């Protein structure tokens, strides 16, 4: 289903979606982030990209699994906690971030469905916003099977045509959303389609950064596990969690018990984000850590994204959003690292 929506009608359409919880990018200080929105007028789609991807809504940094306590008769009591039934619409999703969710879908689905992830995922409707201009100078979606107007993972894709949006519904969920605001939409004319094509072509040309000959990288990485390369590359790494926490595809987590009171026992079992960059990641109870230094941790990040994930899911675990490059406090650039990997030893 393809429609045209005048920009001034956008808030009115959103108002019709009152039965949904609405998320949109919001500015806090100098940074944009996805927040729950109460008034449709507050949505500002004139933004670049959020610091954290919408991953934080589908796979929140903290998720309560269950609550435990001692009941009055002294027996343990355990209550399952599930995400609320709360259908949501996420506006302004960048194509790279939508594609990223299709990757985390593979991880949290497959042989075993992660109940918590899917409860949120199934309830969310993703309304994408094609990138006119690359949101970041470090965007490289074209190198990793993406594009600034990719529809993958989205329910609706909106493209800014100046005074109006070109709105394409891609799923049943998307159709439902458009139908709720039926009277605000118009049929696209030939000129609209032409404008759309022009913008899509131009937006691709504006993406300057590339990973060259990416196909050579996975087999090359396989040969480089024991290479001294990683020691050299990791010299400037400070082992913080920015690259992984900001990554729309990173999905590692830890489960721990948060005890509020030890007598009587009361507490919660929670899942929180974890990252391969932290010193206690994969620390064994024996005290042995198979990844004892920052070189092995940097290697893990790169190999997971460009070798292990490719072997398992036939896709790169990276959508080229460029966040890890832009926000690294010491300027580690994954494109540079991969360029060196590809040319290593030649």
């Amino acid at each position, binding site marked *: 289903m393809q429609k045209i929506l005048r920009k001034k009608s956008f808030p009115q359409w959103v108002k019709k979606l009152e039965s949904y919880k609405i998320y949109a990018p919001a500015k806090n200080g100098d940074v944009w982030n996805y927040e729950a929105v109460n008034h449709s007028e507050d949505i500002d789609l004139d933004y670049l990209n959020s610091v954290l991807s919408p991953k934080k809504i589908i796979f929140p940094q903290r998720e309560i699994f269950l609550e435990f306590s001692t009941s009055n008769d002294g027996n343990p009591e355990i209550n399952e906690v599930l995400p609320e039934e709360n259908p949501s619409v996420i506006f302004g999703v960048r194509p790279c971030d939508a594609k990223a969710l299709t990757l985390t879908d593979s991880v949290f689905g497959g042989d075993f469905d992660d109940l918590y992830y899917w409860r949120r995922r199934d309830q969310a409707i993703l309304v994408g916003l094609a990138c006119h201009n690359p949101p970041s100078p470090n965007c490289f979606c074209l190198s990793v099977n993406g594009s600034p107007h990719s529809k993958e993972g989205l329910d609706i894709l909106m493209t800014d045509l100046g005074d109006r949006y070109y709105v394409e519904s891609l799923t049943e969920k998307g159709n439902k959303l458009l139908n709720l605001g039926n009277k605000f939409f118009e049929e696209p004319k030939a000129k609209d389609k032409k404008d759309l094509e022009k913008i899509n072509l131009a937006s691709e040309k504006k993406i300057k950064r590339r990973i060259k000959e990416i196909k050579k990288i996975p087999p090359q990485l396989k040969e480089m596990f024991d290479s001294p390369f990683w020691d050299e590359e990791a010299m400037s790494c400070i082992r913080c969690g920015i690259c992984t926490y900001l990554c729309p595809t990173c999905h590692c987590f830890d489960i721990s018990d948060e005890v509020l009171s030890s007598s009587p026992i009361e507490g919660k079992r*929670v899942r929180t984000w974890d990252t391969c960059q932290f010193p206690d990641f994969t620390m064994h109870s024996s005290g042995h850590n198979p990844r004892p230094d920052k070189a092995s941790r940097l290697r893990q990040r790169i190999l997971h994204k460009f070798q292990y994930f490719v072997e398992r899911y036939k896709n790169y675990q990276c959508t080229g959003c460029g966040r890890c490059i832009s926000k690294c406090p010491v300027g580690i650039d994954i494109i540079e690292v991969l360029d060196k990997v590809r040319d290593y030893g030649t």
Partner: protein
Amino acid sequence: MVNLEDLKKEAKRILEEGKIKYIIGYERSPNGMMSMPAFIKNPEDAERLTWDPSCVYNLTRFLVDEKRRKAKEKKPDTRPVAIVVKGCDSRAVVVLLQEKFINREDVYILGVSCEGAGVVDEKKLTEKLKGKKADKIEFSEKDHFLITSDGEKIKIPAQEILAERCLECRANFPVIYDEVLGEKVERRPEDPFKSIERIESLSKEERWAFWKEQLDKCIRCYACRSVCPMCYCDECVVDTISFAVAADTTAEEKAQKIKWIERSPDSSENFVYHLVRAIHLAGRCIDCGECERACPLDIPVRLLNKKLEKEAKELFDYEVGFDPEKPSLASSFKDDDPEDFIR
């Protein structure tokens, strides 16, 4: 003015002599204007070194890594490492020396002058350039930076795009060095604690609201800790099991390990993290501002440390990182130290 060729020549000389293990310095990033940390081992690579207002990083943090690496080596290379330091960074070296974390003979200090200016705030520059991309930034005549953008040269008064901490800097020339480049240009800040004025003027309730809003944004990536040269503890309270577990650590010892803080990024735990860090930096923080620069969520963490810096000055007349021979604040005691705040 620092002559970059002099820096490269000096770097080449010390590497050729073979008395230095490697040099921790700055090099240009292949993308964009910002520099990045460089680790130079071979004399011919000394060419890569740079020094310009984009050298924001406090490289002394890598002296901590060096010490850790050396401790693990069976036959450690005991030669010193050389490090390029700005005035503020040199004060961090002083603190590491005072605390006996490093020895003077383990480090060869290559000081560079900030030429009476300082380093750039990338965000301020981006705003100033209104969408134009900067390719290069250089020190220009007194108090100006020269920006190259799309082949065009733009001169901007340094004051307009300096990092906040540079506006309050009290050491724009290295306080300790083996070799120093550039001139000492006196520039005293009008008020070294101006940045905390606004928060100090707020009521207790308003301050609480301010910090709650700020710290609630924290995702606990620990970039502020990781980038800090003073956060060198082997065991940090926030890491769940980073404490020294060895093959012979008993189950009982592990069980007795107290979990001081939960991983959940909520108000309570975020406050614990940031306040523990701030207190541990009292009398130690030299205000390099790296914590705030590294924060992806724009939390003004520097202000916490700035407040404690002011307390140290006002209560104990102590200024951090100027004299390696003096004891640190926490390890010095005077009979007339104020104590009326102890209740």
